[in-house]
């Protein structure tokens, strides 16, 4: 699947913003902890990613993610 990092970033930011934090705070270097994004939020993000890009992210994948950039990079890598 051809998907650009920009497309993934846009979708990830949009999804994370729906969980509460202001979109302006959601930068690549922002940590999920800073954004108050919890494990259940990441489960929901994984659902969106699976539906949009067919990329399956398991719980163990999500545990490794610390920043928004980590998530974007993993999704782009898996979608290739």
């Amino acid at each position, binding site marked *: 699947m051809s998907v650009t990092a920009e497309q993934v970033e846009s979708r990830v930011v949009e999804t994370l913003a729906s969980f509460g934090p202001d979109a302006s705070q959601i930068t690549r270097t922002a940590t999920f902890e800073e954004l108050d994004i919890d494990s*259940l939020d990441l*489960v*929901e993000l994984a*659902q969106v990613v699976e539906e949009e890009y067919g990329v399956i992210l398991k719980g163990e994948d999500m545990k490794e993610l610390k920043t928004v950039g980590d998530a974007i990079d993993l999704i782009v890598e898996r979608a290739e």
Partner: protein
Amino acid sequence: MPEPRQDGCALVTGASRGIGAAIAKAIARDGWAVGVNYHSDSASADAVVAAIEGEGGRAVALAGDVADAAVPDQLFGALEAAFHCPVLVLVNNAGISIDDLTPSLHDSDWDAVLATNLTAAFRLTRRALKPMLRARRGRIVNISSIVALRANPGQANYAAAKAGLIALTRTAAVEVARRGITINAVAPGWIETDMTAGVSTDLLSQVPARRAGTPEEVAACVRFLASDQASYVTGAVLTVDGGLSA
């Protein structure tokens, strides 16, 4: 019959007879469109649908053996397509019993009971939580049994599955509580159904109420737990047993 709810619909597994049929009818009276799941008895499922429609409610019969791993997706897909809304109420009621004393209980009887009574409930719960997490609300009610709490010789497989259902209920309830989703268990005692028809009535003497319960008495509790009013009840086990476990 109240105004039909347009925001979501309800799925009751094993709803063609007994407690499941009573639950489907009771939930429909709160305006939910109900998916009446059944395994083999289509005539009885159709009768439940007809009874609900006869009271002005909405229902559809949905065939499927919940022990089949592919069935949860099929049931949810069919129900969402029939009523054009997400499933916001799930009642895991489907259950079977194959009784024998533990020394002579076969692997196949253990596996079959665990598959239908516990594993299926897990898979259906997992599937249900997707739309519920999105919607930030939802109700799941798992039909356990008093034998999960109080020994009943000859039912090691059934009791283990029903006790597992309580642990699943509590754990999942805590995981999703902050999303407005509640997950509770109802543990019926001696209830008059086809499933208990052949069992000795000697046990009734141990029931403080001195009588068997009815499917409708169980359904009334499930109806409450599935309602908007039960919003602060989660991870609970409600016994409906005439005082047997008191």
